[in-house]
């Protein structure tokens, strides 16, 4: 059950040029978390900025009651968040959304993360490994500096590949190119992916006619986070006059089947 709660910041550390790791102690929020769920975070007290920011749960420790968020400083909200100091209180809503569907796990599993989209995948990969799954992990980033949690990934992944746009580490190019190659070499029957919409969209032609269950976590501008405001909708395929209907990323998602959604842009 989602809650509004005040967490206490235990740490808020810069991990590379743009990314920060926020550790919050929140005794209440933490039961029954599903990887892929997110928090709706009030980055500052006061009105500037006014709205909360949706940020995934990167990792959590039920026993210690700790949540970890990995976030990239992008605009006003995340910038303000990066200025918060340990000891301060932070107002959180969560856990929100439905997370990845782990009830229908397949055998040959791949996890694909692009940019800061890799953040929620850590909790997922940990859970998959706990469930004794072997996981191939593909991580895309702009450059080596932006690759997150490499050592932990090495520990967990059965196979691990990186792609960087500038070629500073691993494959030089887009993660989707690496994905295409990988799918030629091996067969997979399940992919979990998180990253910017253009990345997800670029995955579609690569996967297209293959028989793979693909779950994607979407981003959307959010108001409420509760399903009330209808700000965050994405298109899903339905048979009506429009050829689509809107679903809410905050409560119907953020994880959807790739089959189901129509990625715009």
């Amino acid at each position, binding site marked *: 059950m989602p809650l*509004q709660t005040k967490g206490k910041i235990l740490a808020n550390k810069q991990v590379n040029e743009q990314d920060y790791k926020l550790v919050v102690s929140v005794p209440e929020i933490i039961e029954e978390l599903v990887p892929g769920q997110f928090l709706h975070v009030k980055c500052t007290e006061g009105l500037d900025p*006014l709205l909360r920011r949706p940020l995934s749960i990167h990792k959590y420790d039920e026993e210690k009651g700790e949540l970890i968020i990995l976030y990239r400083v992008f605009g006003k909200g995340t910038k303000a968040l990066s200025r918060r100091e340990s000891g301060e209180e932070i107002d959180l809503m969560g856990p929100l959304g439905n997370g990845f569907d782990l009830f229908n796990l397949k055998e040959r599993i791949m996890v694909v993360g692009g940019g800061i989209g890799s953040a929620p995948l850590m909790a997922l990969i940990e859970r998959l490994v706990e469930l004794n799954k072997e996981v191939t992990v593909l991580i895309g980033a702009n450059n080596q500096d932006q690759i997150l949690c490499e050592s932990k990934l090495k520990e967990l992944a059965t196979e691990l590949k990186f792609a960087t746009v500038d070629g500073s580490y691993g494959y030089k190019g887009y993660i989707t190119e690496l994905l295409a190659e990988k799918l030629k070499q091996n067969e997979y029957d399940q992919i979990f992916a998180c990253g910017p919409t253009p990345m997800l969209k670029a995955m579609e032609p690569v996967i297209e006619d293959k028989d793979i269950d693909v779950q994607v976590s979407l981003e959307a501008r959010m108001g409420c*986070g*509760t399903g009330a405001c209808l*700000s965050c909708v994405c298109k899903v395929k339905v048979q009506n006059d*429009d050829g689509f209907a*809107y679903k809410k990323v905050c409560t119907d998602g953020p994880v959807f089947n790739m089959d189901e959604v129509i990625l715009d842009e």
Partner: protein
Amino acid sequence: MSNLNLKVDLNGLELQNPVLTASGTFGFGEEYKDYVDLNRLGGVMVKGTTLKPKAGNPTPRIAETPAGMLNAIGLQNPGVDHFINEILPRIKDYEFKTIVNISGNTVDEYKELTENLSKVDGVAALEVNISCPNVKKGGLAFGTEPEMAAGVVEAVKENTDLPIITKLSPNVTDITEIAKAVEEAGSDIISLINTLIGMKIDIESQKPILANNIGGLSGPAIRPVAVRMIYQVAQTVDVPLIGMGGIMNSRDAIEFLLAGASAISIGTANFTNPGVSMEIIDGIEDYLEENGYESVEEIIGLAY
């Protein structure tokens, strides 16, 4: 707090307290059941409802602005039949008063919506939205012309025994003129303000951020405009007002009551702080108590 009287009687619409939630910002109430005790709310003004289901506008639908936000949801809603058959049964047993916000493209649509909603149990009042800036046809025009506004209100009034609330647009030269027109047309209550029309442009893409180009500005940024309009309208009409526009906490809510609103409605603040409505009920109680009042009605309109 025992003998404080928070009840307000808005021309027949009785509320256990003057705190409502604003249409489009609180869904049908149930979306907030984990965050607030819904039974404590005075009322819930549900999402704008139309005769047929509406898909709404393309995305992006919102943009953040200084101390405010723009929205262009485009009245996405499942339609009145779905509301009556699926949603109303789930929410009608809460203690809050369910107020249905209705929008039509024509006077006939308002009429039909009114008839349908007046036949069922559990609807406490109708809020006639003549001011939504996000529908292309009708919508806004109704709210900016006194005669057209009156026409809609009369049509609704003739077809229902429910108290009717007319929701005014702030995007007008003289809000008191529209208020008088809808009062004369039979509106039992007036609610104001809806959003100001605004726009934001992304200097990278060089295009408006909202897919709809323009949207409705809400949040604390618009509060001074809302307070001013309530202050003006309260001194012009006799019907009670439900005030809204940028209320973020109980101090703001009290400001609206002092300006002349008999009840207040919370919009954007629900996003910032989902528990805000409870804090506002408590805060109003505290204010009354600390200042030696016995009922909330004593402070309504004290600022003029």
